[in-house]
């Protein structure tokens, strides 16, 4: 019957959904029940809708009669949900997948797997996000699919959209949190995307990255902790040997490289910091724990303010935050000290909050602020909430043990509390006083006397037990009172609580040992009572003590040492915070809160001794190329990451977002773009787009396969190959060889704007070959370059085989010597040669340089006079704002934006690739769409040409 419930669950069910209202008896359906399920399956698999409908009707009839039809389930699901999975509208595709993946029946696992795989390469990021959501569902349904799912996760991790990032990391955490290796390549991207990811995704990503960073980077506080260690050693060191040790260590310290933070470590810290301003408490907490676990000591402080802010939130949030603050204050007291007053307690706080605040205040207490804190504590003791008063008394006790200066003051204060009318208060004070007295009993025999008197009134067992212990332990300070107390206790022995009884026995034993003359009979009486007590612990204790203290001929050697055993000097108790050492749990986690490992908790790894290879995180695609692509798209729709748009510096660290990870060429990128922004009116258009997209994906897949092959063959070329995978969608493609002139071989090229790694003075040119013939093309290579003097070319490696219908992309480098002269060469296949030439637009001869505003002005000052070209222009209609101007300029020339205070001015900087001359561009906008363009460049030819190009771009 699970099948039927799933049917009705299925919201997405469309035309093929069975008609429930149909009366099964009227259609003669019953007559067909001799048919086997196989027939139905066949019918469902057929192409004809009428057959399917018929089959569905029969199945419904069977279900209605209570027959088990579960083996038909996959076939049915295929028809109901899967149809929608191919719907042209991305939202319908997504919800179909959501419905399908929510059906918790193992029989559809294969279908689900297929659907997820397909959706993971869907061109709509929203569908891919849904695919990521479906992964944990499938994993919990059938853990055996793990390996396949990890493949999908790996693929989705490479996704560059903010929409997908949170969901896929979530899936990663649930399915394979230990596969840290999958993160390497995506680390920087995740850091950069983080600010634009939705809040819930941010939490998951930050927590995961904290763990990641702990495995990959060095402890930023390493030198500090080493220093601490060695100084500690020095303190205890007594003989020369250890001295040498110390020297060796000091030498090691010197030898040790000065700590340099990995730039990736810094990137993480920098990119998470703004999230401290999030409105979502979970995000703030996630960043706070990240800083606590990863940041250098000097920087951790910034989280305090944000955490204090959270204290104004709902009481549940306060509760969790305070727990974490309590742990933090133990290790890093300093950072919360300025906020001491924010932890002051109000009478309206719930008790559990009060107690946590008290904990924090106690942790924050030091010599300088203790008097203020104690004054505050004094008001707390008068509170009506008795649990809170008890906790306050304990807090006072802890302050007193930790800070020697105030011990006597505290003790006096507590003694005053002994006359409080509330018994709980008195009892708690007794317990705390007992602990304090243990530190210096000699000076306080009057207090002990005072407490001995209390025994008549106090009824709280713990307090009575404490007093008795105290009297027994320090019986020589109160020689007259002690036996009398024992007398009283012997009288009430039978009515006491168990802990009190044990302490009575204890007191009796100690008195017997020190003052047997007065107490011998009393002790025996007590021991006899205890012998017949109901509690076996008490009976045991009585028997044990009798053997020890009462010398008989049978008692062994131990009784000689009885006095030493009982009246040994006992170390004073250490009053410790219950939050000590809790930071071995990742802060903010459930496990930390409970101080016990919760299921599924991932340990926070220790810092590595030496940093693992940082190059694993290198990705060959510099981010800025994507930045430009993003900018280009901005023009059409408002679909850029939100935060990143208003920044002055669209530098390489900026978040890069591309709508589609399949983005193999300008075509598919633009297609994804339109449906990605999905406005309602465009639905008719979407159909054709998705077709196109399928084609593209097909191509993309093949190309990737092909790339994989070449990769395997030539590992040396791997890097060059790989950087071709993700060219930016918006970069302009130029034709090198037309399909017809090339007899089926089409060649296009573009300036990928990526540094050409084998030679930094060359411009990278990305060339795409497409074989449109029906046969293979072999041995694609370059011959006979004819170049202007000084120009150089670095050929791509020969392409051995290009199969029919396939395409391949390679990168070559050309040093144009900062001129726009064409590079001519021959492109050869195994049968033909073609003369071709590549002529660069002037804007492609440069590469971005990152300057500050001041640097820019300084450099501009050096390039005046002849080197400055200035032109007035009228901005085109579309150049309405700064964004468009930036977009146009960066599309025309490979420059980077320079941050600028004025919104009337946009500045850009770059340098020529070959000779490294600075190119500075300033666009000043004025009223009425007028503007002034200034280019400063040593190479006047370049300057002039650039002015022309940018003028054209801006006035369009």
């Amino acid at each position, binding site marked *: 019957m699970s099948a039927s419930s799933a049917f009705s669950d299925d919201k997405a069910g469309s035309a093929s959904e069975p008609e429930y209202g149909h009366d099964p008896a009227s259609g003669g359906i019953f007559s067909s029940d001799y048919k086997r399920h196989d027939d139905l399956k066949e019918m469902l698999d057929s192409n004809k809708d009428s057959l399917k409908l018929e089959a569905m009707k029969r199945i419904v009839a069977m279900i209605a009669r209570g027959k088990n039809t579960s083996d038909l389930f996959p076939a049915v699901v295929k028809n109901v949900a899967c149809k929608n999975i191919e719907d042209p*509208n*991305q*939202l319908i595709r997504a919800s179909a997948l959501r419905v399908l993946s929510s059906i*918790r029946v193992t029989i559809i696992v294969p279908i689900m797997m297929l659907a997820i795989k397909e959706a993971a390469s869907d061109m709509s*990021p*929203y569908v891919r996000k849904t695919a990521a*959501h479906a992964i*944990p*569902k499938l994993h919990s349904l059938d853990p055996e699919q793990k390996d396949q799912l990890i493949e999908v996760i790996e693929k989705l991790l490479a996704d560059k959209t903010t*929409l997908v990032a949170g969901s896929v990391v979530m899936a990663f955490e649930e399915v394979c949190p230990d596969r840290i290796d999958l993160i390497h390549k995506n680390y920087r991207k995740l850091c950069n995307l983080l600010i634009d990811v*939705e*809040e*819930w995704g941010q*939490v998951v990503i930050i*927590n995961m990255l904290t763990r990641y960073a702990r495995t990959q980077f060095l402890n930023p506080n390493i030198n500090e902790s080493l220093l601490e260690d060695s100084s500690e050693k020095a303190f205890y060191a007594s003989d020369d040997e250890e001295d040498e040790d110390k020297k060796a260590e000091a030498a090691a310290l010197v030898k040790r490289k000065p700590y340099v933070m990995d730039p990736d470590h810094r990137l993480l810290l920098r990119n998470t910091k703004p999230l401290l*301003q*999030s*409105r979502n408490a*979970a995000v703030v*907490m*996630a960043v706070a724990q990240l800083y606590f676990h990863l940041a250098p000591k000097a920087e951790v402080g910034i989280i305090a*303010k*944000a955490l*204090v802010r959270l204290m*104004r939130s*709902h*009481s*549940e*949030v306060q*509760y*969790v*935050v305070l727990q974490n603050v309590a742990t933090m204050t133990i290790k890093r007291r300093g950072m919360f000290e300025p906020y001491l*007053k924010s932890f*002051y307690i109000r*009478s*309206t706080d*719930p*008790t*559990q909050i009060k107690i946590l605040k008290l904990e924090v205040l106690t942790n924050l207490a030091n010599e300088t602020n203790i008097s203020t804190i104690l004054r*505050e504590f004094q008001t707390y003791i*008068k509170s*009506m909430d008795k649990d809170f008063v008890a906790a306050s008394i304990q807090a006072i006790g802890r302050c007193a043990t930790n800070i020697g200066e105030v011990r006597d003051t505290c003790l006096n204060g507590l003694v005053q509390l002994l006359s409080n*009318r509330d018994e709980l208060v008195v009892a708690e004070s007794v317990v705390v006083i007992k602990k304090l007295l243990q530190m210096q009993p000699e000076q306080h025999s009057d207090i002990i006397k005072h407490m001995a008197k209390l025994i008549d009134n106090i009824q709280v067992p713990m307090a009575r037990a404490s007093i008795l212990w105290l009297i027994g332990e320090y019986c020589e300070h109160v020689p007259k009172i002690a036996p009398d107390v024992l007398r009283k206790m012997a009288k009430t022995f039978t009515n006491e609580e168990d802990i009190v009884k044990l302490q009575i026995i204890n007191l009796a034993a100690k008195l017997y040992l020190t003052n047997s003359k007065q107490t011998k009979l009393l002790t025996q009486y007590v021991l006899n009572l205890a012998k017949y007590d109901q509690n076996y612990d008490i009976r045991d204790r009585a028997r044990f003590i009798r053997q020890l203290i009462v010398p008989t001929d049978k008692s062994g050697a131990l009784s000689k040492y009885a006095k030493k055993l009982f009246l040994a000097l006992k170390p004073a108790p250490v009053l410790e915070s219950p939050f000590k050492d809790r930071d071995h749990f990742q802060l*903010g986690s*459930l*496990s930390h809160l409970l101080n016990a490992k*919760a*299921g599924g*908790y991932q340990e926070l790894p220790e810092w590595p001794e030496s940093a693992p290879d940082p190059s694993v995180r290198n990705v060959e695609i510099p981010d800025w190329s994507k930045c430009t692509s993003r900018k280009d798209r901005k023009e059409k729709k*408002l*679909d850029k990451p*939100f*935060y990143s748009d*208003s*920044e*002055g510096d669209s530098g390489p660290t900026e978040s890069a977002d591309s709508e589609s990870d399949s983005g193999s060429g300008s075509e598919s990128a633009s297609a994804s773009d339109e449906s990605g*922004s*999905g*406005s309602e009116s465009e639905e008719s258009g979407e159909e054709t787009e998705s077709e196109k997209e399928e084609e593209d994906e097909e191509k993309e897949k093949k190309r990737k396969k092909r790339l994989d092959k070449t990769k395997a063959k030539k590992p040396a070329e791997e890097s060059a190959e790989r950087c071709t995978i993700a060219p930016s969608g918006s970069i302009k493609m130029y034709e090198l060889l037309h399909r017809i002139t090339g007899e089926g071989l089409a060649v296009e090229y573009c300036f990928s704007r990526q540094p050409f790694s084998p030679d930094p003075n060359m411009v990278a040119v990305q060339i795409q070959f497409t074989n449109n013939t029906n046969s293979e093309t072999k041995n694609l290579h370059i011959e006979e370059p004819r170049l202007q003097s000084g120009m150089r070319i670095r050929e791509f490696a020969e392409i051995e085989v290009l199969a029919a219908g396939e395409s391949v992309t390679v990168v070559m480098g050309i040093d144009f010597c900062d001129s726009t002269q064409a590079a001519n060469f021959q492109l050869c296949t195994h049968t033909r040669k073609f003369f071709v030439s590549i002529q660069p637009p002037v804007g492609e001869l440069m590469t971005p340089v990152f300057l500050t505003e001041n640097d820019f002005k300084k450099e501009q000052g050096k390039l005046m006079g002849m080197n400055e070209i200035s032109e007035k222009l009228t901005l085109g209609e579309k150049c309405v*704002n700064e964004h468009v101007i930036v977009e146009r300029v960066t599309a025309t020339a490979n420059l980077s934006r320079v941050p600028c205070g004025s919104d009337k001015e946009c500045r850009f900087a770059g340098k020529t690739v070959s000779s490294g001359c600075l190119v500075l561009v300033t666009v000043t906008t004025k009223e009425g769409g007028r503007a002034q363009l200034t280019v400063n460049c040593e190479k006047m030819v370049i300057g002039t040409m650039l002015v022309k190009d940018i003028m054209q771009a801006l006035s369009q």
Partner: protein
Amino acid sequence: MIHSLFLINASGDIFLEKHWKSVVSRSVCDYFFEALERATEPENVPPVIPTPHHFLINVLRHRIYFVAVIQSEVPPLFVIEFLHRVVDTFQDYFGVCTEAAIKDNVVVVYELLEEMLDNGFPLATESNILKELIKPPTILRTVVNTITGSTNVGEQLPTGQLSVVPWRRTGVKYTNNEAYFDVVEEIDAIIDKSGSTITAEIQGVVDACVKLTGMPDLTLSFMNPRLLDDVSFHPCVRFKRWEAERILSFIPPDGNFRLLSYHVSSQNLVAIPVYVKHNISFREGSSQGRFELTLGPKQTMGKAVESVLVSSQLPRGVLNANLNPSQGTYTFDPVTKLLSWDVGKINPQKLPSLKGSMSLQTGASKPDENPTINIQFKIQQLAISGLKVNRLDMYGEKYKPFKGIKYMTKAGKFQVRT
């Protein structure tokens, strides 16, 4: 992450449950009831309760416990924050979040919960997206739905989910374009016995109600942004712009939302708008206690202090209070010992006072405790920190919007110790 959700009312009945994965038996709530019993006050139930197989994370809002069932490690704040978001959404949809409102709209509630979490992971929590998916109930729609049997599920596809400004609906249209901003500040303070300030802080928010057509891009600037010590933003605010220029630049969500919350810390001197003179005393051996309370305005920048409400938890020993207010009314609950005095407006010429006696249990000794006095008040047209909005500009749309800014100061946790 979140496995199931139970809603439990004040009398301990589970009146709604929702499961996102498999069904968890209601009996898991027994652990919650145990904790509830142990807690002396409703707000003292620990937010996280471990049970042998699950963890229960709960929040208490509007006297309803929202109990989420968790099976494995998840940041507790993640769940707590989400639960609060659920409550906010209910409030947004139904106006109030009470048991009755939830039961009346149970279909919408289930629809909302279904969309807000997918397999236990938050999916759509932005009010603007949710409203596209599920229309909030109105009387007319309820009537139509009952007759035609249709649902509240939106007919159109929720395109907002795809946008990079997920908080804003597409295709917003208004005939009157308006943007209102409320700057509301709350003073948290502890005043000691002698009237000196122990700690005082200002917590402020800028709440907005924006009804603008299309995709407006707004900037809001302050005269004195440096005042703000610590800020947190709605995701729509461009952080970098704030960092660089101290300007709030944002594409607003449609409707009501909290743009910004901020904090002005005690480092800056915080003006305390009211003072309290009090004399609450008990004499040893007497069964009477004295109660005297006088309120007065202090630093109010010439504005009137209104809606003043004084409340105090008197010691347990107090049997009754016989008091005489110079204005307003007072009540004393002999069971909870809660005294509250609704003062109204403070007239600086004639200060409000509440005087009289308290009767104690005969023979009982004088109470140790000193009650604290909690004060609530409102001051219109004043942001006590001195924060002022400089200007509001709109880009991206052609029409001229109507803009309005209102200031208000309220007492937050304003406490006077005696």
